[in-house]
């Protein structure tokens, strides 16, 4: 039996670069930074005073009453899903063949902390009855599933910063395994709050470049000093190829495969040998079963941490061998910051658009390229990719040693 093929037929996003996909993509190609100094009172005395907030506040596009029942991460999921579903043409589908797989790295942490304040200040009776549905990590997926009446299954993989990519991989398998014909998938995160930021800062994971926030996320630069926390999310509509063709859907790209491994090395530090990453790339390429000559682009995880970026680049070079020479590598977190559970999702969207437009987005803020980085990094301006059939990789890694690699390919009909 031939394997069911999966294509992307809808995209939606709300990111630090824009309130939707088109504005985000435009800012990405223009090399704009979404990182800003935080206005919040708590941030003024924090060790890190900046982050990448969404460009468009949910309150600008969502009714007040809906907002108060949804955690900020759930708001992002609803906003991006509505855009993606509309972009897909609001397909008429048997709801028992419709699934949702939306990840979050941390879940409704802002709700949890805000309600803890209510508990301490006013008492247990005043804790909102919406607290649990708002703080549960599956809340974003569940709310989108409810709105779309999805009945094939609603799921939430959790693997820290690899969550969004793992969700997309799960969605791919749901369609391949014939559990669903359409799956709305992606990842969201809303963790710009003093506690998570203090926690990341305490690990020395965050950049402390308080005097120049827009320059702080600088993957592959010699002076990179940590990641910049971002928020928002991305949603993709995955659809079985024949189903998409039958309804005349616009097809952005094909989802070719995934590779999943775990390091078994350390709870937070990347394995310096990067063997888990190398194996994940090889598994993904084997799953995709395409000529390596077609791989012309890679959206790297590259979070701007001293240890991570080089370990990743070396692992990629090791996995691809001489074929790394024709891969244009982009580190888009230089502009969006790091969306944690949303990262793998928005970067999958960037990969899909790179395949669709045959154009790789740039990496900004590299003033002095780290000598240890031997891959071909797309710097400052976008790069045209070859015409014809091309493919790309999106790799994502999470605290805990999770490695996820996805393969997308241009769709040539």
């Amino acid at each position: 039996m031939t394997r069911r093929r999966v294509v992307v037929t809808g995209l939606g996003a709300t990111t630090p670069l824009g309130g939707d996909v088109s504005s985000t993509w435009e800012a990405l190609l223009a090399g704009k930074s979404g990182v800003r100094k935080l206005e919040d009172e708590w941030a003024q005395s924090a060790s890190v005073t900046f982050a990448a907030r969404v460009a468009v506040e949910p309150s600008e596009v969502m009714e007040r009453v809906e907002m108060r029942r949804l955690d900020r991460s759930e708001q992002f999921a609803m906003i991006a899903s509505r855009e993606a579903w509309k972009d897909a043409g609001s397909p008429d589908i048997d709801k028992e063949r419709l699934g949702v797989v939306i990840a979050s790295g941390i879940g409704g942490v802002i709700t949890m902390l805000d309600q803890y304040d209510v508990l301490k200040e006013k008492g247990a009776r005043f804790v909102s009855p919406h607290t649990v549905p708002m703080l549960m990590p599956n809340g974003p997926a569940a709310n989108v599933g409810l709105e779309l009446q999805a009945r094939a299954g609603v799921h939430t993989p959790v693997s820290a910063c690899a969550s969004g990519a793992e969700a997309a991989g799960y969605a791919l398998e749901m369609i391949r395994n014939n559990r669903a014909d359409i799956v709305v998938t992606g990842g969201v995160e809303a963790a710009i709050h003093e506690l998570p930021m203090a926690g990341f800062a305490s690990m020395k994971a965050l950049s402390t470049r308080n005097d120049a926030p827009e320059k702080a996320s600088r993957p592959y630069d010699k002076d990179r000093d940590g990641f910049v926390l971002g928020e928002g999310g991305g949603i993709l509509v995955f659809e079985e190829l024949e189903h998409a063709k039958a309804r005349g859907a616009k097809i952005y790209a094909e989802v070719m495969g995934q590779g999943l491994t775990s390091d078994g090395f350390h709870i937070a530090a990347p394995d310096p040998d990067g063997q888990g990453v190398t194996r994940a790339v090889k598994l993904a390429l084997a799953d995709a079963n395409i000529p390596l000559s077609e791989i012309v682009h890679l959206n790297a995880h590259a979070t701007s941490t001293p240890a991570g970026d080089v370990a990743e680049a070396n692992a990629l070079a090791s996995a691809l061998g001489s074929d790394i020479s024709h891969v244009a590598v982009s580190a888009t977190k230089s502009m969006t910051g790091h969306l944690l559970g949303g990262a793998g999702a928005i970067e999958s969207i960037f990969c899909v658009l790179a395949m669709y437009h045959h154009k790789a987005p740039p990496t900004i803020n590299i003033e002095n390229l780290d000598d240890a980085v031997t891959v071909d990094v797309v710097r400052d301006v976008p790069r045209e990719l070859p015409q014809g059939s091309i493919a790309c990789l999106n790799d994502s890694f999470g605290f805990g040693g999770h490695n996820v690699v996805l393969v997308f390919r241009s769709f040539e009909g």
Partner: protein
Amino acid sequence: MALTVETVLEGIKEIVVEVAGIDAGIIAMDKKFTDDLDVDSLSMVEVVVAAEEKFGVKIPDEEVTKMATVGDAVNFIVANGK
């Protein structure tokens, strides 16, 4: 000052508008919280806590389960308020 049906109804309207985003114009004594006003079981908890605070009255859980309509809530509060 004793609570009147009119003042309590006005108070309940304000709360339901805040919790459920319903147009105040359609809130009346005979309206059902769940069917007419989009106040589900979770939101009903919010309405009750807000009403207790606003009117200084305790509404026991067993009474809440009997409150199908706005009128049921208003009448309970008027009868049991100070």
